[in-house]
């Protein structure tokens, strides 16, 4: 998908000069400093964090703040909730998006191009447009503060369908599907034995992207869940940060750190694949 169509002479880059390294160093510093400072702030007392000038080096309070955030503000439960939501959303999106992407890429059916255009068009609809009725539905069903109110609307997303379709158009030879048909395999069997094995790398990338997105999702969870009920990390953080002026900012930032570290670990180990996935998903004209 990425390298196949590239002309052989493409992408032979120039050598980087010293200025390139300096500028990239600055960019790296700017990217990483807020994350570093988050660690610093989470390791000081709330009082120290709000004393000028704010600390630049780590302090001694990290464990205190962690245990406070874990036990008093229940970030532990929020962490579990977020893991459940993000995992369910990622698994179902990957599954349904692969099925739909396969149909759009390789199966002939009436209305295919029109439906695909519709899928792409839905990507531009802002979530604000559906939030009010959704909130009423969720209230009527008694689902406020229940995780399914966040999971169900995200079972599959247009981006995922489009992503898998783009991948399968090139990666799955149509002869493979036809051969399986001639052998008498029906569609689900073809999906299991032909499509899934071919699509596996793209499914992994899509799964990671969707997981990150679901982990960080804010607008709808903030409306459907409350910090006092069973919040996701982002909702819990909003509850911590939007309070009155007696907020302990060190604890707030410890919560922020707790919500960021799992994803940063994922990035540290799988960064290359995620980089590949982002570029593969976007650059297809």
């Amino acid at each position, binding site marked *: 998908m990425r390298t196949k169509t590239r002309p052989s002479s493409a992408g032979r880059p120039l050598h980087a000069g010293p200025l390139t390294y300096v500028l990239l160093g600055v960019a790296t510093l*700017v990217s990483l400093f807020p994350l570093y400072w988050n660690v610093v702030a989470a390791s000081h007392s709330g009082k120290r964090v709000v004393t000028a000038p704010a600390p630049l080096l780590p302090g001694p309070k990290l464990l205190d703040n962690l245990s406070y955030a874990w036990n008093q503000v229940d970030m532990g439960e929020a962490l579990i909730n977020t893991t459940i939501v993000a995992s369910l959303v990622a698994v179902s999106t990957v599954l349904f998006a692969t099925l739909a992407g396969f149909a759009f890429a390789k199966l002939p059916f009436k209305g295919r191009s029109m439906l695909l255009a519709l899928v792409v068009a839905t990507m531009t609809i802002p979530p604000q447009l559906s939030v009010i009725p959704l909130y009423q539905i969720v209230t009527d069903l008694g689902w406020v503060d229940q995780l399914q109110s966040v999971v169900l609307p995200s079972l599959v997303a247009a981006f995922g369908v489009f992503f898998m379709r783009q991948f399968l158009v090139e990666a799955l030879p149509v002869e493979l599907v036809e051969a399986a048909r001639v052998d*008498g395999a029906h569609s689900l069997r073809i999906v299991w034995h032909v499509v899934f094995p071919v699509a596996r790398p793209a499914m992994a990338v899509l799964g990671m992207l969707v997981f990150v997105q679901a982990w960080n999702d804010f607008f709808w969870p903030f409306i459907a869940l409350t910090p006092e009920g069973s919040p996701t990390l982002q909702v819990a953080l909003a509850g911590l*940060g939007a309070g009155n002026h007696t907020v302990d900012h060190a604890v707030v930032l410890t919560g922020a750190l707790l919500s960021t570290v799992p994803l940063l670990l994922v990035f540290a180990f799988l960064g290359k694949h995620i980089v590949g996935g982002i570029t593969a998903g976007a650059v297809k004209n």
Partner: protein
Amino acid sequence: MATSVSARDGGPPSPDAPPSRPRPARSEDAARRRGRLHRWDVKAAPYLFVSPFFLTFAAFGLFPLLYTGWLSLNRVELGGDPQWKGLENYTDLATSEFFWNALLNTFTIGVISTVPQLMMALGLAQLLNTKLRGRGFFRVAVLAPYATSIAAATLVFAQLFNTDYGLINSALGWAGLGPVDWESSKWPAQIAISVIVIWRWTGYNALIYLAAMQAVPHDLYEAAALDGATRWRQFVSVTIPSIRPTILFTIVVSTIGSTQLFGEPMLYGGSLGISGGSGNQYQTLSLLMYEKGWVTGALGQASAIAWVMLLLLLLLGAGRVLVARARARRTKLEG
């Protein structure tokens, strides 16, 4: 798996199969049935496969979208029954200074977050598109902000931008500049919020540009170099035109994103977040909608704001189509 599937493929004899047929015809019949099943499978499977998306969209996207449109024509309180009001919610918006303020703020924050973000992403992509030691490290490092949630990023930046003790004002002080009021002054507050957006998305866009740049044939650069073009000239005359579709894609995505800005201004303002600061100086349309719907309890008015957002996006889309058509006509004339 395989056995159960093939068992179903062959299928048990269906009850409505005529029992009086002679034996050789039975296998013929089974074959015909199998053929019918096969044809049905080929026809129905695609629809079955795309149906989860469309069912989810219908239930949680399309129906709410239309229902929001209907609600926007009513007076609806939280928990109450709708009362028909016609276009009153919209005419109220047109005369509401809060609405125009929020619309303008959405626009200005959108511009000062999107334009520098995409320009810096282009530059960053150009830097990353060189023969580089540690390019894997640099790529992951500039992408790290993307792993940070809106909530976490905003809470960190709210501290960095604090007027009294924040590191940014301290740094300005060390540089011999006076402190800036990043909270209550309009432009500094809007800039601070834009910085959060820029920080989270620049690396992401840079990687998208990088992938597009790597697909530009190198011959073009060689030809340009032979003509005596400097690196800057090559960037402007070869790279940018070659990746124009990708640039357009990122402009569309960022524009859509900036019309929906909600979490950053809300959490940046702390207890004043929902109203967008003490003087609504950074209240966006999404924030105003939330305030109307969930603080005031006027869901009809909130729905009208949501539909105005849709209309704005449609206008932007129409504008884009017109521009594309004009360009196509121009190239046709020139060609």
